[in-house]
């Protein structure tokens, strides 16, 4: 059997077995190396398996050689040996996206899948992915272009481009390619070269050859445009001119007596190529034409010829050291020391140019010998000798300095004009001369044009004169302009009135007079407040409460204002200037007006908050505790100590090494059940710890659990027994008197919600009986049904095929019995369900001897009524209790009883085969006043039936032919 198991296990991974075994043996070897005493079998074979084998009866030890051959896989299994299928195999479309690694899927920058279509086996695009529609790409429907061929738009390449391509296209359509290199002066240079002398070019044949190898420099876009317009290199720009004009431009106009070339006059000529006049920007404040001499700095940095100096541009922009070209130098990078080309020797001003073989000979170059190979040491020129050596007068030059070869031109200075004696600068006089400025001065000092001494205003007209003024100066008649003010529309009377009002306000008593202008007064002027305001301000917020001195003065001032007659007026402090005093008073007035409390009704709505600022007295300087402080600290420490000692006798005991009961606390600890199991210890508190709360969730014990479980069971048990002991008529469960329809669900119902809380899930069979479909039923408990069905009443179901073997006469009695039976046997499960006969008739029902009994109609009717009532009661009962077994049988029973309609029976009757009808007839005969109100059976049938009348319904029929639906079992 083991062999079988093993082989079975291995068959799954036959190809991996050997490898796994190898691994295991490796592990074994290493294990044995370190721990020779530990047995490898023990480790590898699981204890579970061992136990199993021992149970089977196999000696593990003796069979160990075979058993060591284990089938536990250790480690990661190797991939299967046979190669998986070829990678080029067709994968269904829906799989492709999933199984393609992300890197293989072409996606655009937005993460959309690219390359649908042919690359991935069809157009899978759709909606967001997308060729525009939810369905993806759909072929266009055929549209005949016959009618509107003219309208048919020619497809452009752009139609097939996506945004990337279009962006590229746009890029290519840019007018100027920013990446291209332009040589703005290529043509000019060529012209110059050709003009300057072909000899030079020929002479330097090597350079020319090398230059020809270089790609021709491209013209700038401007040059190209000009060329397209007919311009040629070397020509001037502009409309073509006549020969005469050309001559005039060239500077030798045609003399009147000069013979004119006929041919020449016939043509038009391009204008002369003249240099565009370059007017340098004037950025100094010297007079026009004044050339300041070069400063020493300019001279040293040098290189600037006198021409540049002449143009007033002492600005010889220093180009800085050459930066070595190479990687890592972006446009934004600043040149650092490392980037400077250490091999660059073309320093400004010096004559140490590099001479390369391909350097075209520059005309201004004095030495034009080409050096190939190692350089000669620079020849010391005479200049250098002089410069480093001596001045011209023979004095030696300090080392490190060079004598300038160009003499330093000093700035020319012009003598100052003579200042007349006794002249005193008096700008007012100047302003007075100008009437316009004079008027402005009157208007206010702020409008005064500031006499700027440093930089003279370059645009003085803007400030000095308005358009009107200029017009006046020029003698223009002023334009009729709109009136400028509202006042212009007012009548003279109104103006006067307004003026009066303004005057009254200015001197008014209604408003407190603010402090007068400081520059005007030098005397103390106490502003007045109305007494109301002053009084209110005294009650309100005190703004200077932090500065007691100021606060006092403020109060004094307010008092003086509130009762001007009695209170003394505020006097300036000693040493306080009148200005300061006035300012102080102005502050007081302002704050009094601001902080006066709201009056009247509004005031009652607010309560001023009491802010108490408790600020400890701050002593400046270092904190130096005094003796008192030390004493305080000591006291505090002592107190702490005392407290500690009082608090903790244990600690005290520990300190004194008095270990024992004082220092020991004992608590009951409940170990977890699993822990006990693992430690192999019996539960010390199997019944729970007396007087102890059950431990926390982490330390929950089995004991407590067990206990709880048992009590639960006990709790449940009586409830389970309740239904069996229930008196049917009482219709209540445990407390029949308290629980009836009247008080259920009310506040004083003690049982309220109890059943939901103590709900026990009933057995599965019950659920099955209730909810399982009939088919299942028939399969599941067919044989049980056979027994069960015996005593059942005839269910009048909707199933028409079912044969009704039970004589209809029996229908009257069994419903009652059935009903009673259900109630009495509710606790028993359905499998043992035993329908009993009428309670009144029999105590116990023996299946073999059971016969349905017939009850007279009158009696039955009573019973039925009572029974119906009971049933209703019980239904409510059932709902209440939720523990009574409910089954379909009962329900059907109830339905049937309440239905009792003849129509149903009719339908039965129709379907019934004649044999059954016979039974029916018996029934009809027996109970002519039965509830079944139906047609009398046909005569023929009656005759057939009659002989049967005398016989009671044979027992074997009822027993062998179960009523109700026919089950599969019945046919077996």
């Amino acid at each position, binding site marked *: 059997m083991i062999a079988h198991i093993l082989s079975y296990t291995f068959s799954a991974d036959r190809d991996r077995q050997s490898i796994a075994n190898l691994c295991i043996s490796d*592990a074994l070897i*290493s*294990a044995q190396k*370190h*721990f020779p*005493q*530990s047995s490898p079998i023990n*480790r590898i074979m699981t204890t579970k398996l061992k136990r199993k084998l021992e149970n089977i009866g196999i000696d593990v030890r003796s069979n160990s050689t075979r058993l060591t051959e284990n089938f536990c896989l250790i480690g990661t299994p190797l991939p299967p040996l046979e190669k998986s299928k070829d990678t080029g195999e067709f994968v269904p479309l829906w799989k492709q996206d999933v199984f393609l690694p992300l890197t293989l899927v072409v996606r655009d920058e937005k993460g959309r899948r690219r390359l649908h279509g042919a690359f991935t086996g069809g157009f899978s695009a759709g909606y967001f992915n997308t060729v525009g529609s939810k369905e993806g790409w759909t072929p266009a429907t055929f549209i005949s272009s016959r009618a509107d061929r003219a309208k048919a738009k020619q497809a452009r390449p752009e139609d097939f481009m996506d945004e990337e391509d279009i962006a590229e296209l746009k890029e290519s359509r840019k007018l100027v390619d920013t990446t291209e290199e332009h040589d703005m002066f290529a043509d000019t240079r060529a012209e110059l070269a050709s003009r300057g002398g072909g000899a030079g070019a020929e002479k330097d044949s090597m350079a020319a050859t090398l230059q020809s190898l270089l790609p021709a420099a491209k013209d700038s876009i401007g040059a190209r445009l000009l060329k397209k317009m007919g311009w040629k290199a070397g020509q001037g720009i502009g409309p073509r001119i006549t020969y005469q004009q050309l001559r005039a431009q060239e500077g030798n106009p045609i003399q009147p007596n000069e013979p004119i070339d006929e041919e020449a006059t016939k043509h038009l000529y391009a204008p002369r190529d003249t240099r565009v006049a370059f007017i340098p920007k004037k950025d100094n404040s010297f007079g026009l034409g004044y050339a300041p001499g070069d400063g020493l700095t300019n001279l040293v940095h040098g290189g600037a010829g006198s021409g540049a100096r002449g143009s007033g541009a002492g600005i010889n922009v220093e180009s800085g050291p050459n930066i070595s070209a190479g990687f890592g130098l972006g446009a934004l990078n600043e040149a650092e020391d490392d980037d400077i080309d250490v091999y660059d020797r073309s320093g400004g001003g010096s004559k140490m140019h590099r001479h390369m073989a391909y350097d075209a000979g520059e005309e201004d170059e004095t030495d034009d010998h080409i050096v190939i190979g190692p350089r000669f040491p620079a020849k010391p020129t005479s200049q250098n000798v002089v410069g480093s050596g001596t001045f011209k007068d023979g004095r030696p030059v300090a080392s490190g300095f060079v004598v300038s070869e160009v003499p330093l031109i000093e700035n020319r200075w012009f003598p100052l004009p003579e200042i007349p004696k006794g002249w005193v600068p008096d700008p007012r006089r100047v302003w007075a001369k100008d009437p316009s400025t004079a008027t402005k001065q009157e208007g206010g000092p702020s409008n005064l044009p500031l006499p700027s001494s440093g930089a003279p205003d370059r645009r003085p007209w803007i400030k000095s004169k308005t358009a009107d003024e200029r017009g006046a100066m020029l003698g223009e008649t002023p334009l009729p302009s709109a009136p400028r003010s509202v006042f212009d529309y007012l009548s003279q009377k109104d103006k006067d009135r307004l003026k009066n009002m303004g005057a009254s306000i200015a001197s008014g008593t209604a408003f407190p007079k603010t402090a007068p202008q400081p520059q005007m007064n030098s005397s103390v002027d106490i502003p007045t407040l109305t007494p109301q305001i002053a009084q209110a301000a005294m009650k309100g917020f005190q703004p200077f409460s932090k500065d007691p001195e100021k606060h006092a003065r403020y109060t004094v001032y307010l008092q003086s204002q509130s009762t001007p007659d009695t209170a003394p007026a505020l006097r300036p402090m000693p040493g306080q200037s009148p200005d300061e005093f006035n300012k102080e008073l102005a502050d007081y007035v302002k704050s009094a007006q601001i902080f006066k409390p709201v009056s009247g009704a509004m005031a009652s709505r607010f309560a001023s908050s009491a802010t108490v600022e408790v600020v400890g007295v701050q002593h400046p300087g270092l904190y130096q505790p005094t003796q008192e402080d030390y004493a305080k600290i000591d006291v505090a420490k002592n107190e702490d100590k005392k407290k500690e000692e009082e608090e*903790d006798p*244990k*600690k005290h*005991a*520990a300190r004194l*090494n*008095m*270990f*024992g*009961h004082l*220092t*020991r606390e004992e*608590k009951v*600890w409940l*170990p*977890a059940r*699993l*822990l006990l199991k*693992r*430690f*192999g*210890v019996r539960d010390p508190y199997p019944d729970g710890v007396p007087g102890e709360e059950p431990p926390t969730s*982490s*330390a929950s014990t089995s004991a407590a659990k067990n206990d709880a479980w048992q009590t639960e069971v006990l709790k449940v048990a009586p409830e389970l027994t309740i239904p069996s002991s229930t008196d049917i008529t009482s219709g209540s469960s445990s407390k029949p008197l308290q629980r009836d329809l009247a008080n259920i669900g009310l506040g004083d119902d003690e049982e309220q919600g109890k059943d939901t809380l103590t709900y026990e899930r009933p057995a599965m069979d019950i659920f099955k009986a209730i909810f399982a479909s009939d088919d299942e039923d028939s399969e599941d408990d067919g044989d049980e049904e056979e027994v069960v069905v015996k005593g059942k009443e005839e269910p009048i179901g909707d199933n028409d095929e079912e044969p009704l073997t039970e004589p209809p006469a029996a229908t009257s009695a069994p419903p009652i019995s059935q009903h009673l039976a259900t109630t009495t046997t509710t606790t028993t499960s359905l499998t043992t369900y035993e329908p009993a006969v009428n309670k009144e008739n029999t105590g116990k029902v023996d299946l073999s001897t059971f016969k349905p009994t017939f009850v007279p109609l009158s009696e039955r009717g009573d019973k039925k009524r009572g029974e119906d009532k009971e049933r209703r009661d019980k239904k409510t009962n059932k709902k209440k209790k939720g523990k009574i077994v409910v089954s379909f049988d009962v329900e059907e029973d109830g339905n049937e009883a309440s239905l009792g309609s003849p129509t149903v029976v009719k339908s039965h009757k129709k379907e019934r085969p004649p044999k059954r009808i016979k039974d029916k007839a018996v029934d009809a005969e027996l109970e002519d006043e039965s509830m079944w109100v139906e047609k009398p059976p046909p005569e023929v049938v009656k005759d057939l039936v009659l002989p049967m009348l005398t016989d009671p319904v044979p027992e074997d029929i009822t027993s062998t032919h179960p009523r109700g639906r026919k089950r599969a079992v019945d046919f077996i």
Partner: protein
Amino acid sequence: MSFRGPPPLPRSLHTTLSTHTGPVHVARYAKGAAKYLLTGGQDRTIRLWNPNLGTEIKVYKGHGYEVLSITISPDNAKIASSGGDRSVFLWDVATGNAIRRIPGHLARINAVEFNEDASVVASGSYDSTVKLWDLRAQNRQPIQTLDEARDAIQTLFVGSTCIMSGSVDGHVHPVTSVLPTSDAQTYLIQSLNSTIILMDAENGKLLNSFKGHTNNLYRSRACFGHAEASVISGDEDGRIWAWDLVEGSPLAPNPPPKVHDKLITWIEHHPKEGNEMVTASSDGTVKVWKTPDNTDS
């Protein structure tokens, strides 16, 4: 005279195991014949040694922080270790692989102990809890959490029916090691007031106290000498102290010589043989001490 007192401490240096870089926090003898030694240190490794030969057999790497405690299963197949990385590591001794990592503590784990059959591992942590982990089942939750301690657990002992933990809280000074005698009648407590006390397990009475050494700052483990006749402990000066268990008096030499450069973090006497002992120190060395053969015979 010599046979009346406890046997002399093995005081001659046998080997020095010095491949640890940084302090060595723990050194434990293997179970059984105890032919091997396991040490764990600040360098995040656990090392397996043959103390007799002084050779390093294996290094267990996997801890992300210092290793503070090691425990060895009775069959020597597994070890559990803990330290700064808040989880207990379970190692397979032979392969050197970490079989299991048991997270759950909120702070570093100072002590870890197997129970007698290594079916439960207890871990005591700085988060003041002792957690008991089931090793039989794959349950991730602890079997039980003992959170009675009010401060960091420093030491643990798990016996067959008892679990003892030493914590920084309490009335005695911080307890750094707890070790019961084999009869479980008394236990030895090392606390940070330079005192080792022997307590009665029954009623918590003080039976004896051993003083003389200095141990005020660091965890240092005290243990019993051979046959539990003496108490030995290292101190913060690098000396190995020994006391007579019954008399409580320091054994000669008093004061003992300084044998480690720094404090001795762990001292463990060989469980079987009387002439061997090991000390781990924060100077990065583990020293194996033996009694010279001539005195042994």
